[in-house]
């Protein structure tokens, strides 16, 4: 049996930040175990931007955020095993894992659980109807489109308006897919307001609140769904059924912490969050086992996951070294971003939710009455917000993120290095789609200069060799 001071299960954002913090806190032998072929976890398929506003003060794509941490991990000389899956964990911290070389056991002084979460599947929803192909979770669809380069549908209805559902509505639209509707059973969306604006409104995708899918049609492949309004008790209202023809039903109906290993180690679980019960040091009730990130509870932003990973990693190291545990920075509070449509003004009105920083000011813009006068803004707390709001009502701009194909089939995430006019998005997609890449390629490499006569370059957002 091997030995290690700190074993971190999962090499996603939680695990990577825990590893770096554990090493910084003095642990010599830190080991990250990752089941995928590279570090980064789910960030690798989240090619959209919006990550890192809290942690790095700038907007990054998922792969860019991951690559920053991968660099920290490798700079710190932390050992990591990829393509390796942990299959068992005991209360006395024996980690059993398998990979192509064999099945091995590692005795750890401390363990950090950082396995992330998984999507709720269809079965948990009890949607009546047939069992055809074409019912797919948003995350699986994201993997097919962004990582594998395959289209899982042409005409889709999305059930659930969480952030992944919203992001995928835009992503599919950019790839020429018709997103017919997003249905949300609750009275408001749980997704971030900025995502509702940039993923649905930008593309005129209807968001049907208080609606759910009550039947799936089609024997072999999905042919349509019945969408029905629900009452206050969330029961379908008779007579409101609407048949929508589609070939795919995409589900974005929530995430659940991945707790197989937590349960194998018989760690006390929180019935509400469905993850382990943790204390202020991110410790579970089993001595020496810590937990962080979405394996504990589903976090809104990856930035918060990284913060939690740091505390867990540091304390895992301190436990391994026989030191007292330390809580996180006192007074450090996460700003919660605005969610749902309730903050949004009706379409066409000059009220903007600012997305420059996480505060999300609600800014009213008044156009100048006479030529030569300036725009008036109300509700902004900084000048960046003012500029953003004016831009948003006069000539809105968006950062475009998508993938490009390499000759060998590898998909490379790319983005525009600055926002482009909203009405140029499809023109730019067309230009991007016509080009094929060659490996190796590095993060930041310019692929297309000044795309579509804009000021923006298309740059690579992940290093691949």
């Amino acid at each position, binding site marked *: 049996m091997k030995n290690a001071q700190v074993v971190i299960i999962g090499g996603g954002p939680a695990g990577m930040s825990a590893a770096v913090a554990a090493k910084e806190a003095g642990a010599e032998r830190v080991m990250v175990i990752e089941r995928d072929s590279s570090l980064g976890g789910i960030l690798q398929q989240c090619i959209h931007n919006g990550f890192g506003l809290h942690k790095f003060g700038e907007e990054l794509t998922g792969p860019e955020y991951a690559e920053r941490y991968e660099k920290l991990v490798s700079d710190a000389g932390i050992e990591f095993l990829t393509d390796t899956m942990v299959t068992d964990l005991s209360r006395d911290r024996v980690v059993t894992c398998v990979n192509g070389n064999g099945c091995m056991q590692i005795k750890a002084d401390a363990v950090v659980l950082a396995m992330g979460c998984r999507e709720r599947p269809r079965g948990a929803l009890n949607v009546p*109807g047939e069992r055809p192909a074409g019912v797919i979770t948003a995350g699986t669809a994201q993997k097919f489109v962004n990582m594998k380069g395959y289209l899982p549908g042409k005409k889709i209805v999305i059930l659930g308006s969480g952030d992944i559902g919203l992001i995928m509505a835009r992503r599919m639209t950019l790839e020429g897919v018709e997103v017919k509707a997003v249905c949300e059973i609750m009275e408001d969306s749980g997704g971030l307001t900025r995502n509702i604006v940039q993923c649905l409104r930008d593309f005129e995708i209807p968001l049907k609140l208080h609606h759910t899918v009550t039947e799936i049609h089609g024997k*072999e492949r999905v042919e349509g769904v019945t969408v029905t309004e629900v009452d206050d008790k969330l029961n379908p209202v008779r007579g409101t059924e609407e048949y929508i023809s589609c070939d795919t039903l995409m589900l974005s109906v929530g995430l659940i912490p991945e707790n197989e290993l937590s349960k194998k180690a018989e760690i006390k679980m929180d019935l509400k969050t469905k993850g382990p019960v943790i204390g202020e040091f991110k410790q579970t009730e089993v001595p020496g086992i810590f937990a962080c990130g979405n394996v504990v509870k589903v976090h809104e932003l990856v930035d918060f996951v990284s913060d939690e990973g740091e505390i867990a990693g540091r304390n895992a190291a301190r436990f391994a070294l026989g030191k007292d545990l330390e809580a996180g920075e006192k007074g450090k509070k996460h700003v919660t971003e605005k969610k749902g449509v309730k903050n949004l003004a009706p379409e066409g009105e000059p009220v903007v939710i600012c997305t420059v920083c996480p505060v999300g000011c609600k800014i009213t813009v008044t156009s100048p009455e006479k030529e030569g006068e300036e725009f008036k803004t109300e509700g902004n707390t900084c000048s960046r917000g003012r500029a953003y709001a004016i831009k948003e009502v006069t000539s809105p701009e968006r950062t475009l993120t998508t993938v490009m194909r390499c000759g060998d089939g590898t998909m490379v995430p790319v983005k525009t290095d600055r926002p482009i006019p909203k009405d140029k998005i499809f023109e730019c997609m067309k230009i991007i789609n*016509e080009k094929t890449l060659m490996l190796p390629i590095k993060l930041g490499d310019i692929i297309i200069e000044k795309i579509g006569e804009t000021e923006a370059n298309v740059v690579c957002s992940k290093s691949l060799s």
Partner: protein
Amino acid sequence: MYKAAIIGAGVVGGMTARRLSAYDMSIAILEKEADVAMGQSKANSGIVHAGFDPKPGSLKAVLNVEGNRLMEKTCAELGVGYRKNGALIVAFNDEDMKNLGILYERGAENGVEGLKLLDGDQARKMEKNLSKSVRGALYAPTSGVVCPYELTIEAVGNAMDNGAELYRNFKVCDIKKEAHGFIIEAEDGRIIESEYVINCAGIYSDKIASMVGDDSFTVTPRAGEYMLLDKEAGYLTDATIFKVPDHMGKGVLATKTVDGNILLGPTSVDREDKEDCKVTAGGLAVVKEKEMRFFDEVPFDKVITQFTGLRAHGDKGDFIINSPVKGFINAAGIESPGLTSAPAIAVKIEKLLLESGMHVSLKENYNPCRKKRVVFSRCSPEEKNRLIKENSDYGQIICRCEEVTKAEILDAIRTNPGAVDVDGIKRRTRSGMGRCQGGFCMPGVLEILAEELKKAPEEITKKGGDSKILFGRLKAGEKK
């Protein structure tokens, strides 16, 4: 010219093919779907019934009890999971208690061994989650569980190992009787000739019989809707719990499957369309309501999937096993207890064939056993290590919920009858059967299937036909 053609690769067709493959004869198994076990053999309760229920003297009674006796050995030979978990038939009121007594008598008459009448407390001692309102129970220790599609797959596979040939997507549309045998035509134009034909076509067995002029029976699809719960709900019961039949019929059951999940259902409603496998809100509500009588609390929040199976309900009140035309044998109307009876039905068909003058001799090299599939998740760390050292594909876990490795998936494609679609992999390996229901592993399974079958990923289907999963590649057409 085949000696025998078996129409339908369900459990009855599979068991029959296996039985006949012991003889020196050529066998064709004709299946209308892309895979075996695609009808009621993939969606039923998986109960190996003890045999107290069918009317004494009926084919159902005789073949059920005989099939129950054969099942353990059959499963052992085929390497199929089987567990004798016993059954409790529970009673709630006076009518039920009276019926329980009748059932006990009937069971004894059918030759069911070990039956015992229990009071409510004794029943709760066996299954502690049973409701307080359970007043009495009939205990049937010979009742068991088996995975119905696993049994079917391995039976067909064993027959193939012994020389039988499987024709997939062979939808029989016409049968002609000729002097020397039968000419069987498929919708796609393929033709097969065979001296004997055995009709094991499940809900379509009436249509097949009618192709040789036998219109003596009809088969109605009788839908049964089920809910499957996560293994975490496995504490609910170990034994199979039935409600004693009353004037309202047989009711639902609750059981722990061979794999440790809890299965609830089925409903029992006739449908018009033989392809209508819809799950309905009403059906699920009935299952919920009825299950709540068995237990004080049912963890419905642990439901991972729901499905509907169609039973082949014949209009004769019993299995229809006969030979309406010389050389043509019906095994029709095989509804519950058809799964249990299947090994015995195969023996009966074998006898009918031999009696009708089929001249064949036993094979010298017939092997009734299959190589047991490796189930990586159930191996010890030492065994896992050994497997990976021999074949590194065992070190690559594709399905995280059920811990299924690439090696097991490849084996499922390469072993008779090989999986050709995503659901086929699921039924052979459990990949995609866990609580995330394939969300994580499906892209990986699809890639392995494409690579191994030398197809493009967009050609791989969920379950044959037009059930394709992908609509082509991104950014592929634009560049020229």
